[in-house]
């Protein structure tokens, strides 16, 4: 099984990885075109807009005239991305000159958008129906609670108070790469730790990615899933939409999404509704924006004590990964960062940098204003403890001694140095140590010297 790498990969990378046929089908949907366009680098967006009403292919050369010499690398990146997503289609004519044309479906969909504006396929709940909708704060709280409940079940199902409706096999898929089964029971792997330290958006990406890559086994077309998820991200947060407007497949997806906290389901008197939460709208937003970052809760003192203002079990579990949790009050978790707790974390593959960036990103607003938000002596000590572990470096090597003459010894030293393999030399006793990888060359060299 390939190693599951934890990276906050963009949704669009996944779209770009789809085969051309599927991608062409996706562009039937106006929302996908819109989401794809918005995901592009600024320069690429502009090119796409500029090409919207140009019917003839534009040669590469004339396109290069649009940019200043300074911006050429940006231009390359933009063009590459456009081709990767098949927004631009490459065309080579008889004179071997390459030119670009906008994807026809993409083009017509965006032209429509420019005239009519963005129109959702379904209307929000009309205001004459008197149902109490959750406020935005309630919705945010709901999304957060649902998500934490899911995460807790993911990392330790025994701790979870209530279980989500995901089937155990589905849960296994999510856990793949994050947990490893050992005799003592499931244990978090290195990437599992990294996963927990990521921010909510990145975590959601990871889960959604797994969900999509697994969709084929469940008889779902990944393209359908992607298009529905993107469409969902264009719905207004906090508005209720009728579930009857969804297709059969989408209805089954939306139940899973409700478990993740992406939507909230609400049962009306006759019909049921779904309400997208903040997590849904963040799906197509670029990850880099810090506007979606949640409020921090951790205060670290110079005496290595750590206070986290939270009652969440999940936070407690995360903090337990690298600190000793001492006691837990109704809204406060108190812990200490110790050498032992950190060694435990390092052994599990968490790096000092990850811990420090977690502490900095989740700093309580009061301390976040200060610079540095985490005391310097603490961050330095965390790094020192990590380097302590790496004090001894193992290099497979070979020792040569009993050289016949000074001349041979010096020639051997010279040879080893040239090949970048000399580790240690002692001219008095005529002994050298070289790296294991050049041992064979060294032997060849010495054999020649003897003759």
């Amino acid at each position, binding site marked *: 099984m390939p190693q599951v790498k934890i990276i906050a990969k963009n949704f669009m990378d996944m779209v770009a990885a789809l085969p051309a046929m599927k991608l062409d089908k996706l562009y039937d949907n106006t929302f996908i075109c819109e989401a794809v366009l918005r995901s592009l680098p*600024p320069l690429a967006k502009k090119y796409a807009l500029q090409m919207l009403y140009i019917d003839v292919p534009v040669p590469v050369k004339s396109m290069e005239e649009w940019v200043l010499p300074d911006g050429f690398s940006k231009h390359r990146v933009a063009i590459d991305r456009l081709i990767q997503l098949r927004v631009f289609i490459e065309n080579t004519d008889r004179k071997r000159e390459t030119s670009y044309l906008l994807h026809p479906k993409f083009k017509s969909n965006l032209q429509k958008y420019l005239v009519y504006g963005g129109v959702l396929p379904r209307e929000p709940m009309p205001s004459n129906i008197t149902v109490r909708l959750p406020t935005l704060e309630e919705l945010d709280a709901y999304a957060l609670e649902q998500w934490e409940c899911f995460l807790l079940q993911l990392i330790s199902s025994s701790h979870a108070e209530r279980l989500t409706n995901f089937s155990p096999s589905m849960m296994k898929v999510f856990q793949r790469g994050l947990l490893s089964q050992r005799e003592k029971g499931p244990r978090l792997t290195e990437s599992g730790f990294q996963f927990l330290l990521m921010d909510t958006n990145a975590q959601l990406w990871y889960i959604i990615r797994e969900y999509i890559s697994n969709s084929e086994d469940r008889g779902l077309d990944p393209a359908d899933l992607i298009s529905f998820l993107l469409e969902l991200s264009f719905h207004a947060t906090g508005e209720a939409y009728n579930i009857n407007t969804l297709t059969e497949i989408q209805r089954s997806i939306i139940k899973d999404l409700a478990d993740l906290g992406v939507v909230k389901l609400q049962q009306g008197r006759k019909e049921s509704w779904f309400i997208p939460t903040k997590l849904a709208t963040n799906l197509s937003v670029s990850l880099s924006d810090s506007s979606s970052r949640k409020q921090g809760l951790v205060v670290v003192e110079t005496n290595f004590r750590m206070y986290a203002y939270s009652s969440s079990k999940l936070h407690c579990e995360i903090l337990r990964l690298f600190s000793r949790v001492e006691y837990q009050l109704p809204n406060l978790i108190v812990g200490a960062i110790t050498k032992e707790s950190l060694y435990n974390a390092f052994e599990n593959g968490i790096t000092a940098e990850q811990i420090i960036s977690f502490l900095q990103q989740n700093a309580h607003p009061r301390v976040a204003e200060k610079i540095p938000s985490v005391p310097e002596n603490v961050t330095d000590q965390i790094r020192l403890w990590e380097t302590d572990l790496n004090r001894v470096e193992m290099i497979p090597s070979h020792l040569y001694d009993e050289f016949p003459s000074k001349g041979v010894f010096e020639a051997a030293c010279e040879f080893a140095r040239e090949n970048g393999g000399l580790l240690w030399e002692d001219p008095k006793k005529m002994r050298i140590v070289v790296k294991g990888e050049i041992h064979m060359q060294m032997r060849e060299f010495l054999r020649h010297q003897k003759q």
Partner: protein
Amino acid sequence: MASITSKLYSDDVSLLVVLLDTNPFLWSGENTTTNSLSFPKFLTHVFSFLNSILLLNQLNQVVVIATGLNSCDYIYDSSSSPTTVESLENGRMPALCSKLLQNLEEFLARDQELNKDESPPGIASSLLSGSLSLALCYIQKVFRSGPLHPQPRILCLQGSSDGPEQYVAIMNAIFSAQRSMVPIDACVIGAQHSAFLQQASYITGGVYLKPPQLDGLFQYLSTVFSTDLQSRSFLQLPKPVGVDFRASCFCHKKTIDMGYICSVCLSIFCKHHKKCSTCGSVFGQAHSSATTTSDRKRKTTES
């Protein structure tokens, strides 16, 4: 300045304030030349352009200000109107268009009311200074609110000729835009170049363009004026060919090549005066009269 820049989004999020020239004399047809376009056609180009700006980034914001003959007002703000609510109420008219058109109609009616009092001689210029100030006020409000704000810029879609009587007010607006680092783009859709807008875009680092083919206005708008500020440093954009730096005199509001300048307050006059009308300094022969400063001040306030 540092506090302002640190609050910007990292990406290409922009706030575009569009100033629409709604001067009835420009669009009435008396003034039209062969390549000019009608007002409805002009609006369709602008609507598509506004939609494309909103399409580029979900955080982008568009504000439209109408520049009338006697007044100017906000007629559309994308941040205050939810786009989905009334989208299908009136047939297939999108929310943006219907809302903007409705406000525009009301504005034009009000503007016409004001016009009845005093009919201007000949073809009057529209109140560009007023709408520039409105745009800058709006941008200042955005700067002061919220943790993050988009990068603002102003686009003037100007058709009518410059009104020399607005010279001081417009120059003040331009320098205020320069101070708050807001570029003023200018797209001239009239017959003549606009010296005011040439100076405005030159001073604030915006783009000045007078499209030769007005039928393809949207292409000009999307190619040149949709570029966000970040991308501008990588792209070839129209460069100013020549900027008309001529000033207007303060006394008769005429555009002049040469004139007299007050050595104290730098006010400009086309003729020799005995006294500066702005600061009250007395010009003339080396031996000036013996009036004290306080006396002079009182005189100017009385006059």
